[in-house]
């Protein structure tokens, strides 16, 4: 099978149309399971009481915010090196979802900080660098829409996403590099300090978020393709049939 078969926008448009609902359903099922385990089965925390359950949204969102940026930068690099239009469109389609997860991580973190730390906001290294990540996303979106020629926006924004990737290690390692208020990693490959049901719920929610991210970006990339190729024959044929 030709590897580049799906990299033609028209084929990918149809493929994405078929895949997106499947991922949405998967995300819904996983989220329902995760919420059930997290909200019903997981025990109440000895120190924090019920409020700790924010973790089941907070941590998956925080992980996804970084992961999506990484994927976006990879697409950006592909767009620049292979000059492939579809990669640039994928990067563009991922950015709003990434920004959304970043915002959710910030919001739930602030919401959580009130009962635990006694304040909505601290200028802690991790929290601040997560805020910076939000601005990187916003910068990407703003730059990709700042030109009349969409191609220019694609190329400029791809370049930006690659340059901006230096921020990721800083967010991730910030808890190790500085002693901060925010807690460090509790999930390690070798044994975890967390209750098993909590871990299960968190992983379920993470996969749900992942599936949702894929589904959402597939839907968005479809509309980007449509807008970009509106003068192409196959799009006009779509309208006719």
């Amino acid at each position, binding site marked *: 099978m030709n590897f580049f078969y799906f990299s033609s926008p028209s084929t990918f448009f149809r493929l994405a149309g078929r895949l997106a609902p499947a991922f949405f359903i998967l995300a819904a099922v996983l989220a329902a399971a995760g919420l059930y385990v997290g909200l019903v089965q997981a025990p109440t925390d000895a120190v924090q009481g019920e409020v700790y359950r924010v973790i089941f949204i907070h941590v998956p969102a925080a992980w996804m915010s970084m992961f999506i940026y990484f994927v976006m930068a990879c697409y950006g690099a592909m767009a*620049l090196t292979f000059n492939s239009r579809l990669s640039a469109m994928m990067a563009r389609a991922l950015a709003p979802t990434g920004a959304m997860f970043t915002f959710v991580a910030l919001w739930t973190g602030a919401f959580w900080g009130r009962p635990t730390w006694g304040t909505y906001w601290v200028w802690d*290294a991790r929290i*601040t*660098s997560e805020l*910076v*990540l939000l*601005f*990187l996303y*916003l*910068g990407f979106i*703003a*730059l990709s829409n*700042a*030109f009349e*020629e969409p191609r*220019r926006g694609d*190329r*400029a924004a791809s*370049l*930006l996403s*690659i*340059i*901006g990737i*230096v*921020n990721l290690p*800083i967010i991730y390692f910030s808890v190790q*590099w*500085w002693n901060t208020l925010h807690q460090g990693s509790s999930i390690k490959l070798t044994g975890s300090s967390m209750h098993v049901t909590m871990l299960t719920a968190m992983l379920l929610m993470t996969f749900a978020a992942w599936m949702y991210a894929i589904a959402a970006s597939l839907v968005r990339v479809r509309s980007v393709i449509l807008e970009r190729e509106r003068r192409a024959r196959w799009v006009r044929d779509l309208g006719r049939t």
Partner: protein
Amino acid sequence: MSGLAWAFSRDLTLAWRHPGEAMLTLAFFVLVASLFPLGIGADPQLLARVGPGVIWVCALLAAFLGLPSLFASDHADGTLEQMALSADPIAAWVSGKIAAHWLSTGLPLTLLSPLLGLQYGLPADALVTLGAALLLGTPVLSLLGAACAALTLGARGGGMLLALLALPLFVPVLVFGAGAAEATAAGLSASPHLSLLGAGLLVAAVSVPFAVGSAIRIALD
């Protein structure tokens, strides 16, 4: 290398024609740095604590102020086209321009920082760390800033878009620079932070001119 040389000398001459702009950056730096004691009171211990951080943030902002004009006027009057067509590789003269930019904003600022540090009552070792960190960090700021300036050429957002792009990228530099000062204050060695900054400078100096070059090609298209 000749591209680096002519672009460097040209931009430096131009900057010298308008010393006002470079002075504005410096003046801004000094103004902001000296406003802080006014704003937060003259408690020496407090000042010594916030000193390096304030100086770093001022350096960041000062480096940012000169960015919009780095390529914009050359773009508007057609010089950028001529440069892009020159026989020298684009990365060479871009490096020259960036070097000139650093020399007219970053360097004066670095040279001035010990003086400001003294005003904040920093001890001698902290002054040395601060100066060294700025010497390594400000070129990185110029390099990253140039990349953002090139990316936003001809874009609709103007200066604000540039800020949105550049300031997040500046953050790592700020974090390591301020980290070096903090380490010294805590009696630890600043060299891990400084070597990270140095490594960052090397990587940026080698890779950014090419990124800027392709951004400019994109802008001229």
